[in-house]
């Protein structure tokens, strides 16, 4: 119980402002503004929230200047304040803008770290001397380099978004990036394409008279661009569709045909051979009983029945 009160007292001593003009005042003002903003409505709420943030930023900046957070004798407090500023400026915007937050964080922190060099003891603006300038130049350039690294990371993310199939591949030889496993099974986009090819095929072949089926197969032998176009319309558009080329192989099997749907990936890959993914459908003629028929007449129409098996393989080599 005593330890609890002691801890409580030390916290109060830390937070309570020793005098009006101190950083604790600003932090308390910030908490007050946040509470007030939670209790009010737009647009006052936004204004109070922003005010709360601004007080927090100034308060933290002041606090960390008086008690700098150090890593091996190097104060990182400007980076903390810079992070708060960036969160405030870019935090509540959507995805694209959040990248800007990361990219602006190092330069803003560098500017904060160098502000005190621009004012002399009388708080007048005075340009720094050359030795100090040299240090500032190096500080600013290092932080800009870190921004470039962040931007490169975002470009990599956009590539992975444009070409999702790349994630299924092996990045061992890369001199630039490593791949971290998310533990999720990622299907190459070809799987989506093949699955969506099934419905146009069904439309064209299932439950149709056998002669139509054979005519269609003859027309579309090896070249299924028409139904591919139809299939692609149903899928969300992706940059990498350019590199997928679907093909159709027709093999006769028993009384019907085996349709081998293959989607070949010709885009960036880790091996020289092409990768492909395969789906086999077969179409068989089925005799249908004419219910109202005369038992002696066997004029039963023959229709095709399409049955597709699930996808197989993300395989290498030429199909």
């Amino acid at each position: 119980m005593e330890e609890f009160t002691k801890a409580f007292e030390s916290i109060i001593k830390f937070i309570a402002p020793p005098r009006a003009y101190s950083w604790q005042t600003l932090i308390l003002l910030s908490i007050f503004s946040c509470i007030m903003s939670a209790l009010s409505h737009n647009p006052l709420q936004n204004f109070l929230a922003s005010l709360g943030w601004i007080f927090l930023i100034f308060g933290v900046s002041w606090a960390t200047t008086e008690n700098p957070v150090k890593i091996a004798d190097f104060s990182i407090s400007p980076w903390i304040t810079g992070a708060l500023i960036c969160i405030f400026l870019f935090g509540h915007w959507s995805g694209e803008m959040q990248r800007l937050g990361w990219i602006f964080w190092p330069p803003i922190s560098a500017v904060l770290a160098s502000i005190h060099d621009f004012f002399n003891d009388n708080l007048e603006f005075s340009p720094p001397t050359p030795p100090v300038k040299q240090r500032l130049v190096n500080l600013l350039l290092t932080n800009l380099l870190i921004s470039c690294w962040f931007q490169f990371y975002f470009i990599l993310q956009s590539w992975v978004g444009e070409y999702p199939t790349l994630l299924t591949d092996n990045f061992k030889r890369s001199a630039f990036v490593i791949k971290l496993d998310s533990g999720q099974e990622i299907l190459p986009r070809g799987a989506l394409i093949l699955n969506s090819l099934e419905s146009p095929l069904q439309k064209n072949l299932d439950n149709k008279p056998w002669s139509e089926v054979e005519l269609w197969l003859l027309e579309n032998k090896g070249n299924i661009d028409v139904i591919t176009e139809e299939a692609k319309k149903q899928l969300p558009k992706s940059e990498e569709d350019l590199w997928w080329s679907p093909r159709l192989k027709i093999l006769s099997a028993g009384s019907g045909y085996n349709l081998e749907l293959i989607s070949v990936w010709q885009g960036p890959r880790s091996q020289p051979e092409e990768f492909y993914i395969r789906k086999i459908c077969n179409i068989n003629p089925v005799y249908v009983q004419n219910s109202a028929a005369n038992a002696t007449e066997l004029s039963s129409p023959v229709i095709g029945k399409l049955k597709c098996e699930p996808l197989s393989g993300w395989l290498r080599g030429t199909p």
Partner: protein
Amino acid sequence: MFINVFPLQTILFQSLFLLVAIAVEGFILHKQLNLTRKTSIEYATSINLFTTILGWVGFFYFYPLLPKGLKAQVVSYIFFDRFLDYQDNSIIILAAIGTFFVNFFTKFQALRLLEILLEVPTAISQQARKSLFGKNQGSVSNLSGSNSSQASVILLATACSHSVILLILVLRLLK
């Protein structure tokens, strides 16, 4: 937002190359331009950082302008260290030679900019001062010499640092 690809090697290799280049070029600047060790390392840091950042900005600017086929090649090279359906790797050698010259010019300009920024008295301004005041200004430790001597020193420094970087890359290839 889960991290699935991360440019770890980029950061590590670039930091390594920067440190090596700064060390080598700092040493050469110190020897050739008679600067103090500290000043020459600081100069080398600034010009190398400047060149690297300019390189990144160039990449960010030119990549979106490439046609789709070339973009795929770049993606393929960065992720898989090979080109798409194109076995010829000589483009890398061309890129290396081009990089050397671009680096050299950029570093030279960076050094001149740095000297202007830091108000380093150059030979020309020293002459002007001499004729104005008619007396010898004591030798300034930051005096960097004339333009052409600076250029040759930068050329030497760039050549040496690139050679060391090439050595590291060859070692990595043989590993």
